[in-house]
């Protein structure tokens, strides 16, 4: 039996992409998608296509930047990397995510007792 795969929560994709770029350094879209799937051990159902509008959005906000380069298999690919304001944003979002997660966890815990 396949484990049920969770949908990516609204607004969390940005955080995931930022964190991925933070860990991997400059990476192309395929690499990012692979990494997300690896880390989530396929628990996350990600339409890889949805990554691109998100990447564009992040770029428009100035959190990531992109430039054309050569991929490991010698293909022209667009590499995305974290900008300084992106790094700051990641810290902010990670913190607020943790806060939110803690609140949710506490809420759920309180219900349990």
């Amino acid at each position: 039996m396949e484990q049920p795969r969770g949908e990516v929560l609204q607004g969390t994709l940005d955080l995931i992409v930022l964190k991925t770029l933070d860990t991997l350094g400059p990476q192309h879209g395929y690499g990012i998608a692979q990494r997300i799937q690896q880390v989530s051990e396929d628990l996350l159902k990600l339409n890889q296509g949805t990554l691109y509008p998100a990447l564009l959005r992040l770029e428009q906000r100035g959190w990531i930047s992109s430039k054309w380069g050569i991929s490991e298999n010698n293909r022209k690919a667009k590499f995305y990397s974290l900008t300084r304001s992106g790094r700051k944003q990641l810290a902010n979002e990670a913190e607020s995510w943790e806060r939110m997660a803690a609140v949710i966890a506490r809420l759920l815990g309180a219900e349990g007792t």
Partner: protein
Amino acid sequence: LVLKEHEMERLRIFVSRLLGIFAVRRRDDSFDTELGNHLELLTEENVRRGMSPQEARYAARREFGGLEQTKQAYREQRGLPFLDTLLQDLHFGLRLLSKDARLSLVIVAILAVGIGAGTSLYSLIDACLIRSSIPQPVKERWDVVQGYLPNQKRYLQYMSAPEIAAVKQLTEVFESVGAVHGDSFNVTRGEYPERVLGTHISASGMTMTHVAPILGRTFREDEDRPGGPRVVVLSYELWQHRFSGDANVLGRSLWLNDLDYTVIGVMPRYFDLWGGELWIPAQIDFANNNRADRQNWIVAVLREGVTEQQANARLRTLAKEIEQHYGSTTPEYRDWELRVWNIKEAVIGGVKPALLVLAGAVGLLILIVCFNVGVLLLARATSRLKEIALRTALGATRWRLLRQLLTESLLLGFAGGAAGVILSVGCLPLLVHMIPREWLPIAPELVRVDHNAIAVACLIAAVMGVLFGTAPALQVLKENTAETLKEAGSKVGGSRFGRLARNALITCEIALSVVVLSGAALMGESYRHLEGLDLGFRADHLLRFMMSLPATKYSSAQQIASFFGRALEQIRSVGGVQGAAAVSGAPMVERSVDSISRDFTIEGRPGQDARGAENANLRIISSGYFETIGARVVQGRTFSDRDGREAPRVAIINQTMARMYWSGANAVGSRIQLGRQYGRREAFAGSEENGVSLTIVGVVSDVRQVRVIDVPVRQEIYVPLVQQSNPPRIMTILIRSLRDPAQLTRSARDAIQTVDAEQPIYDAGTMEEAVADSFGPKRLTLFLLVFLSGMVLVLACTGLHATLSYSVGQRRQEIGIRMAVGASHEEILRLVVFEGAKLGLMGVGAGVVTALAMTRLMQVLLYQVDASDPLILGGTGLALISVALLASYLPARRATNVNPTTVLQ
């Protein structure tokens, strides 16, 4: 940081999105590459996992999700949806316009011509007729304070020191008050003596201009007092030619009327304050209590927030106070008024009618352009009925269609506007170049395209686009879709509405053309009359220049008279000189009012005083004056040697005066006495010699004296120079020559310098030039009107031609049927030409009626021509009808080429 962080971010997103709109194709390509790579990598990965290539590709697609959705989401994220549609509209619009390239080009060309010609002409009119007549650095806010004497119906432009002082007291009304008057100076002790125009101006008047000198400074208040230092500020031009632009000019001396003035400043190029090339402090003596000694204009700037009415109210009370205190000693204060005039109005007043007519003609031109473009756009919109109906049927919303049509017309409007601006910038110098230099009152390089005019023209283009783009669109959208789809292709002659609207527009266009053309024709006719006008003297072969004797050297009447006597004698001995004479005011020099006039009484006719407006011009002349200028003696004789210093005092009058006071009977032998004098002091040095009896010894033909030659000749008195106890030092010398008079200037100057080596002459020129000059503004107006009429005519032709061509295109089937049932080529030709003639006739009819109403407004500009002259109006109408017929002939020819078999298939 002024912007908050998230605002910055929003701005960045917007900019990025905005940029995303452009280079759409390239970005799409690059995104396709990126996605393609992703899919290939996925596929390769799947192959590595052991799938077949086919399977691997499908799996990759699955994992990736919807490819097109991704692209759409990406595009939406990238651009601004609203602008995207707009770009689509633009794109589509451009495609449609280029499909109909000829028509689009014609529309853009017409718009360009209208906007280009309109803005060029406006700029030219502004530069020549408005800006040139106003002291250049003067702000809109400058006013002049002038008196009005209702009993004499006369303005007091010049004011005396006590009057200026009184106005200066009104600090609650005026921010600053200055005094100014023009003068001319003999500049000596350089390489050559010359005569230069200059201005006496108070220190406050100079600072009011808010123009800083490029070298040195202007006057200080403490220099502007009687007996103050002799300092002078130079114009850029004088600095260049007298000091060769010497950077160390400050502190050097300039000798004016034999007095040395220290140069303290140089004004920037084109600085023009009351004309003139130098400025010296007015140094008004406020201790001078002579209230009739009026020498200066008062210029003033109203305090912020003070209205003209308030200022006039305050000035009225001031005038009343002055009248109460000094009315007994100064009779002109009776009922007098003081008031402010905006300097622009005060100076433009004279050219206003010409300006209005020209501005009106430019306005009509633009209207005609509007109509023309309207006609073309209407024709086009009607021909698109079917397309629009189809798009409606396919589900396009009305708003979307309207937007599409609007975008197209705006596109045309802006293209036309841009082309017009380019045309205007490119053509204005050409237009300026076409105008002879001497007609232009200002330096040609100062005529620049007016930015306001361009802005207005572009606005007009946009409004035209909206109006003529949506009007047919609305009409098209109202039509029943299904009906249109069925009929649009076969409807004969296009929709009724479209046709009516087109015909109405073209009729209006022709009507307006008639108005502009008849205006030009009337001006031309009036100019012809003016040129044939009898000036009362012979302007050919006449040289003219001025001399001003310095008071330091020539103080007595005898010295002055003997100098001019000897100088004239010397000139007469020069080869080629037929005659020479001196006069206090040469004909065709003064602008519109003669410089000197005097009240007079006729002995033996008590109670018949000629005062104020009824008085006579006065001219002081040397012997031989009438012979030299070629005026006819009607009765009696001219002055001769027997009218010497000690001989009985004599005078000569002109025919107008003889007719008015002696009703044609013999005036010779009657005696007159001169009374009060009017005019500028510096122009008339003669003291008031009241009560001396002058015997009239002759009557001469009327001479046109002022440059505005269509004002009636006034009564005039001539007196001999030698009999004056205080003769003028400024005189004009007139020389009749056998050869080209311009060549005589040098030898005449040499002849004068044998009498006084330091005496300069100035303002030299031929009388023919002066006469031509006086036609200048009228000629310029005429030139511009003719130019405009040409454009209007071309536009009217294009409009009519386009309408008829279109209508022929629409009626191809009808024409085909007619031909099939046996109509001859001539009948078809007549059919179309008749349609054109009908429009032409209606237009001309409406035009003549409009012209009758509108040309009346220009009656003041006309000379001996009736604004409703039937010959001129009729001729213009006929000319336009022939042009209309011509414009219809070409489309008619095309109609006869219709091949019935192809059309009816």
